[in-house]
């Protein structure tokens, strides 16, 4: 049991570290380090421009999309090298946020299902950050139940005509392309009538509207499709096989190992270390210490769970399902941490924004936190996944399983 690199890993780390040291946009390091959930990452510059420039620089030197094959703009690295890169990239990894969906989900789906000429033309600019991609799955009527989506695709000659609405699409407002899951046959049970496409987000009939979130910010969008035409050669997988194609996409989302999840704990520990309460330093207070200790072991537990997964990668094994707990634990923890940080501030905790304690860091975290427990799979879906795939418990009894999609009720009452 050790934390040491193998000689090859150490060599890779040294090369990566040297290149990052010489090339990363160091002027933003401080700001990136101080970012936390719910906080705008960069104030001194347009983050999209900074991120695209950093991604392009990486791509030109062969450091973009490490796990992708070289012919599609990647480096052909091993999974463990990808983890080492993330560790070395440190705060600059924040600049990859707008590429995560494209690189982690859309790219792998294209690799598995697109025509070769499409792969060669679309993937390299996706890797280099010149083109940004989004994923259009969720709908008002299909969140956790993605297969309940209603956006229609109807065949018309060599094209498909799309009508409907997507929601919760991250980055749709700055995306160039997207992968789109549609319903092509409502007369068969819901999982069987789906088909996947990719499309140009600038196509006529695509309208992107930002959603104003409960936090007041806008990270996501609604996307409306009105008679949008997609050529059939942009179909991914067979007609009616969209559900299986989407599973490839989602599996890639969940297999991202070693990506740090935000728990809010380092921020809270730092805050309590200097905070004075009415009767002395917060860190001396028994109740505060008990709370901190409980969160400390969750944060360290997640960290070492991730290290265990990385070790499996290092040995060339597939990591176990342990890593699926990260989002579930961190999501509700950061919400509790933020709530407690405000409790420590007393009545003044109600003040948010730049005038507030720590410029409103924990207030912003609190308001953004509910989203973390929903996005990318709700807490309840994550628990189902653990129960079914890890513990082997039965799947939910599905009353809509063998019912044609068009016969499934659409309203709970009335």
């Amino acid at each position, binding site marked *: 049991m050790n934390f040491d690199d193998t000689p090859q890993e150490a060599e890779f780390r040294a090369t990566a570290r040297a290149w990052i040291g010489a090339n990363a946009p160091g002027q933003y390091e401080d700001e990136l380090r101080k970012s936390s959930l719910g906080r705008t990452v960069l104030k001194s510059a347009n983050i999209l421009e900074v991120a695209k420039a950093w991604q392009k620089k990486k791509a030109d030197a062969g450091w973009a999309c490490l796990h992708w094959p070289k012919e599609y703009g990647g480096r052909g690295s091993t999974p463990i090298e990808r983890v080492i890169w993330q560790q070395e990239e440190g705060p600059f990894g924040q600049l990859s946020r707008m590429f995560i969906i494209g690189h982690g989900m859309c790219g792998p789906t294209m690799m598995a299902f697109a025509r070769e000429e499409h792969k060669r033309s679309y993937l390299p600019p996706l890797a280099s950050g010149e083109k940004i991609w989004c994923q259009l799955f969720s709908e008002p009527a299909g969140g956790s139940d993605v297969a309940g989506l209603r956006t229609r695709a109807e065949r018309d000659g060599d094209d498909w005509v799309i009508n409907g609405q997507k929601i919760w699409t991250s980055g749709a407002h700055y995306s160039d392309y997207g992968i789109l899951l549609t319903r092509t046959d409502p007369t068969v049970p819901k999982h069987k009538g789906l088909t996947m496409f990719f499309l140009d987000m600038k196509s006529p009939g695509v309208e992107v509207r930002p959603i104003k979130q409960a936090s007041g910010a806008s990270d996501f969008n609604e996307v409306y499709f009105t008679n949008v035409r997609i050529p059939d050669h942009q179909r991914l997988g067979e007609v009616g096989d969209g559900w299986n194609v989407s599973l490839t996409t989602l599996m890639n989302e969940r297999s991202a190992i070693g990506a740090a999840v935000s728990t809010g704990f380092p921020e809270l520990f730092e805050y309590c270390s200097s905070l004075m309460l009415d009767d002395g330093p917060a860190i001396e207070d028994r109740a505060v210490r008990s709370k*901190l200790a409980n969160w400390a072991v969750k944060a360290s537990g997640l960290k070492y769970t991730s290290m265990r997964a990385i070790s499996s990668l290092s040995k060339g094994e597939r990591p176990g399902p342990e890593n699926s707990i990260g989002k579930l634990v961190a999501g509700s923890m950061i919400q509790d941490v933020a709530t407690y940080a405000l409790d420590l501030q007393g009545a003044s905790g109600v003040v948010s924004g730049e005038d507030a304690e720590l410029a409103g860091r924990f207030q912003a975290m609190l308001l953004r936190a509910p989203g973390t427990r929903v996005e990318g799979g709700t807490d309840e879906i994550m628990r189902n996944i653990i129960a079914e795939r890890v513990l082997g418990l039965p799947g939910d009894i599905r009353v809509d399983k063998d019912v044609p999609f068009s016969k499934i009720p659409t309203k709970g009452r009335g």
Partner: protein
Amino acid sequence: MNFDFSDDQKQLRDQARKFLTEKCSPKAVRIVLDGKAPYDKELWKGLAEMGFLGVAIPEEFGGAGAGHLELCVIAEEMGRANAPVPFSSTVYLAAEALLIAGSDAQKKKWLPTIASGEAIGTLALFEGKGNPAPKNVRLTAANGVLNGVKRPVADGAIADFAVVAARTGSSGRDGDISLFLVDLKGGGVEVKSLTNLDPTRGQAEISFRDCKAEPLGGAGEGWSILCQVLDRAAVLCAFEQVGGSDRALEMGRDYALDRIAFGRQIGSFQAVKHMLADMYVSATLARSNSYYGAWALSTNAAELPEAAAAARISATQAFQHCAKNNIQVHGGMGFTWEFDCHMYYRRANAMALGLGSLSYWEDQLIDRMRKKNAA
């Protein structure tokens, strides 16, 4: 990075599991649970023969000289099997104290008898309510004799010797405490068994009246030695707790698959599934924290105090959580003496107190994290 046990260590774990599945079935545990024997003597003998008791004791003192990672994997299996033997008292506490502070003669006298299963040892620290603290040690040592009462002492009624924490000064500092080694079969010792939460591991009160004792470690070094022993034992107990958590989770999962209610497996209800998923989450966090503790223990890393406290808290919480919800999944049957669920519930809650309570370790963890940050 290889943040995992080696193949040899995993093989040892499999070997221990196989041995304990055969020799330490729930039926065997119940003989001790029902008060028909103070501990499982046959199992103890078998553990000695397998080399498990002395796995971390150097060969020159009669052990296998393997190491603490090997001891961790065995500890996990002991916890999983709910073994009714004085393993933690003898191996994690007494043997560790001897390894850290014993003279060559003391090690030669006691360590081989631990490894061979002839001697049971324990640590006599607590004196009634309260957590580990120098001020809570009132038993006195003067002119080579001890006077005072220790309670509870784990496995005190079956132990052959004890490491005893005694007061040798009154400055109010840690240096007031010294450790002594006492042959419990000699004079001046009175032992009384105490009923306790977990009858598969005995607790006793030991009174010392002008009891002869020899120093273990230097005068006034007792507290610093004890802190090291408790940290090391915290990691090892965490592995027992991880083993127990996994077993309780498995029992709950199996029952949820087998039991039918409302015409379906109860494991198909989300209320039950999610309870089991949460148990898995606790057990996984505990395992990962414990692995870090194992690394720190086996390398004597400067991080050991912090790692030990984190492993202790995480594993205590996980075992309590899994043991109590295992009963909940079982419903009424889980609350019968006949079902095994309560054995894990008892063990989980007894283990949560044995080295000092959860709140004590929470306090320790924050102190240690602050020290690290200040350094």
